[in-house]
C-alpha cells in the first residue's frame, strides 16, 4: 500500500515512466539522440512550451484555466521584434525585455481582473481576451518579420559547462516552484484551487490568489515568448496560437487535474517533454506525411488514457 501512497504523492510518476519509455524508443532509432548537439536542439525547441505550460499549471492549480497564453506569446513576440533590431545594444535589449514582461503581466492582470474579481467563467473569458491580445499583436506587427542581433540567438544556443541553457532555466523554475510551494502563498494556492468556498471561509484572500495566478501566467508567457523569439530570431503575430492547447495537454499529461488544487510543475515539464519526444519520434520513424497527425494525436490520447487504463486493468473503477 505504500506503493499506492507513493503514486498519489507523485502524480507525475506515470508521465515519467512514459517519458523514459519514449526516450528509449527514440534513442534506438536516432543514433545521436544523446549527443550534446541533439539534446540542446530538443531543449531549444521545447523550452518555450515548457515555460508557458508552467504558467498554465499555476492557473490550473488555482482552479482556473487560461486559453489566452498563446495569444500573449504572440503579443510579446511582436513587441520584442519591433523594439529589438539587429543593431540593438544591451540597453535596448533590456528595455525591450522589460516592456515585454510588463505587457505579459498587464495582459495577465486583465484576465485576472475578469476572472477573479468580476467572477467571469475562465474558459470563455480567456478565450475572448485571447482575441484582444491577438489583435494587439497584429496591430504591432502586421506581418511576419524582424530580425534579432546575432549575439542574442547565439546566446540561446549556448551550452555553458557543456549543459544546454534550457536545463538551467528548468532548474531555476523548479527551485522557484519549491519556494512558492512551501510559502504561505503556495498553501493558499492549493487551498483556493481545491475548494474556493472553504478557503474563503478560512480567511484566504481567494480572489487575490486567483488574480496572481493569471498575472503569473502572463509573466511566464512573456518569458516563453523571450525563449521562442531568441530561438527563431524573428517575429510572427500568430506564432503562439497553437501553443495554448498544447500547454493544457502537457499539464494534464503531467498528472495535474484540471479541477484544480492538486499537481505541480515537474509533471508539466515532463508532459511537454513527452509531447516533444512524440513529435521527434514521428519524424525519425519516417512516418508517412499523411499519417503524422493521426499517429501524433493517437499517441497523445493513449498517453492521456494511460492512468485510467491502468486503473481499469487493476479493477478499481
Amino acid at each position, binding site marked *: 500500500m505504500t506503493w499506492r501512497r507513493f503514486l498519489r504523492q507523485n502524480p507525475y510518476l506515470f508521465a515519467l515512466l512514459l517519458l523514459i519509455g519514449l526516450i528509449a524508443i527514440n534513442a534506438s532509432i536516432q543514433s545521436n539522440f544523446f549527443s550534446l548537439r541533439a539534446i540542446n536542439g530538443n531543449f531549444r525547441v521545447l523550452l518555450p512550451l515548457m515555460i508557458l505550460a508552467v504558467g498554465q499549471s499555476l492557473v490550473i492549480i488555482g482552479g482556473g484555466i487560461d486559453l489566452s497564453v498563446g495569444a500573449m506569446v504572440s503579443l510579446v513576440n511582436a513587441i520584442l521584434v519591433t523594439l529589438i533590431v539587429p543593431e540593438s545594444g544591451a540597453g535596448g535589449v533590456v528595455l525591450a525585455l522589460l516592456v515585454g514582461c510588463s505587457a505579459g503581466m498587464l495582459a495577465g492582470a486583465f484576465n485576472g481582473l475578469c476572472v477573479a474579481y468580476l467572477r*467571469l467563467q475562465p474558459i470563455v473569458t480567456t478565450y*475572448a481576451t*485571447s482575441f484582444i491580445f491577438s*489583435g494587439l499583436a497584429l496591430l504591432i506587427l502586421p506581418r511576419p518579420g524582424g530580425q534579432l542581433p546575432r549575439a542574442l540567438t547565439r546566446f540561446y544556443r549556448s551550452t555553458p559547462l557543456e549543459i544546454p541553457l534550457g536545463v538551467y532555466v528548468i532548474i531555476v523554475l523548479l527551485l522557484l516552484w519549491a519556494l512558492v510551494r512551501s510559502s504561505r502563498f503556495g498553501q493558499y494556492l492549493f487551498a483556493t484551487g481545491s475548494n474556493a468556498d472553504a478557503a474563503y471561509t478560512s480567511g484566504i484572500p481567494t480572489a487575490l490568489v486567483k488574480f496572481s495566478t493569471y498575472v503569473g501566467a502572463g509573466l511566464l508567457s512573456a518569458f516563453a515568448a523571450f525563449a521562442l523569439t531568441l530561438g527563431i530570431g524573428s517575429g510572427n503575430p500568430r506564432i503562439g496560437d497553437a501553443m495554448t492547447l498544447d500547454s493544457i*495537454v502537457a499539464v*494534464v499529461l503531467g498528472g495535474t487535474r484540471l479541477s484544480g488544487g492538486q499537481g505541480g510543475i515537474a509533471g508539466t515539464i515532463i508532459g511537454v517533454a513527452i509531447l516533444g519526444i512524440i513529435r521527434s519520434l514521428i519524424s525519425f520513424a519516417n512516418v508517412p506525411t499523411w499519417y503524422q497527425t493521426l499517429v501524433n494525436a493517437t499517441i497523445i*490520447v493513449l498517453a*492521456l488514457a494511460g492512468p485510467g487504463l491502468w486503473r481499469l486493468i487493476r479493477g478499481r473503477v
Partner: protein
Amino acid sequence: MATDSGPGMTLRALKLNPALIALLLAIALFFIGGLIRPGFVNVNQAVNILRLASLLGIVAAGQTLVIISGGEGIDLSVGSVVTLGAIMAFRFSNGQNDLLILGLLAALSAGAAVGLINGLGIVYLRIPPLVMTLGMAGVVQGLVLVVTQGALQGGTPPALAGLISSNLLGIPGSVYIWLVLASFLWMTLERTPYGKQLFAIGVNREAARLSGVKVPWVVLVTYALSGLLAALGGFCLLGFTQRVFLSLGTPYLFPSIAAVVVGGTVLAGGKGSYWGTMAGALVLTLINSLLTAMQLSEAYQLMVLGITLVILISVYGRQRSVRQ
C-alpha cells in the same frame, strides 16, 4: 435595488431569462448595424444572418447538451466533427440526390461514433472532457488526412444545396431544419426521462447516482449526441459551402461554446436551455456580420470581437460569489 414596482419586476423577469435578453440583444444589434451602415437593415441581410446563425446553432446544439451535463463537460471535437460530417456526406452521396440519405446516415454515424469514443474515455478512463475531446479532435483530423490523402472525391447533391440555400416563404431551408431540431431538443430536454436525468447529473452527479440515475449511460448518450449533432451541422454546412476542406469546421468550435454561454447556459452544468443557445448563435452571427460591415482591419476586428465577448460574458456569464 429592485423594487416591487413595474419596471423593477420586468427587469427581474428578464434577469431570470437569459435567452430572452440574448434575443432582444440580437434584435438591437441588427438595428445598430443599420445605424453604423445604412443598408444593413433589410430583408436580404436578415435572411442571410438567419441562415448563418442556423448553421452555428445546429453545431452548438450538442455543445449545449454536453455543457448542461456538467462534470467540466465541454466538447472541443465539434470543429473536427463538423468537417468529418461534411466530408462523409460529400463522399458517400457523391453529388447524387439518390444517395443523399446515405450521405446523411454516414455523416451522422461517423459523428456519433466519435462522440461515443469521447464519452467512453471520459466515463471509463476518467480523462477530463476538455483534453479527451481535444485529443479526439486531433485523431479525427488525422483520420481525415489519412483517408482522403488531400484528394477529396465526391460532390454535393443539388438537393442538399437547394435545401439549405433555397427560400421557402422567404426563409432559408436550414432555418426550418434548425426550428425542427429546436422543437425536438426542447421535447428531449423538458419532456423525456433523459432530459431530466441530464439536468440532474449536471447539478450533482453523486446525488443523481444515489437517486437511481445511470450516470455513465447519460454521459455516454450526451457525448454521442454531441458528435451526431456536430456532424448534422457539417452536413448542413456542406449544403451551404458546396465544397469541403480540412479546416471547414474549425471556425465553429469556439463560437459554439460562446453561443451556449451567451445564451445563459452555465459552464458548471445543470442549468440552461437550447432556446438560449439559439439566441446566442444569433447574437454571435450578428456581431460577426457587423464587424465585417464596419470594414475594420483584421487587428481591430479581433480586438472589438474580444472586447464585445468579454462584455457579453460579464452580462450573463458571471459565476456566483464565494461570499454567498
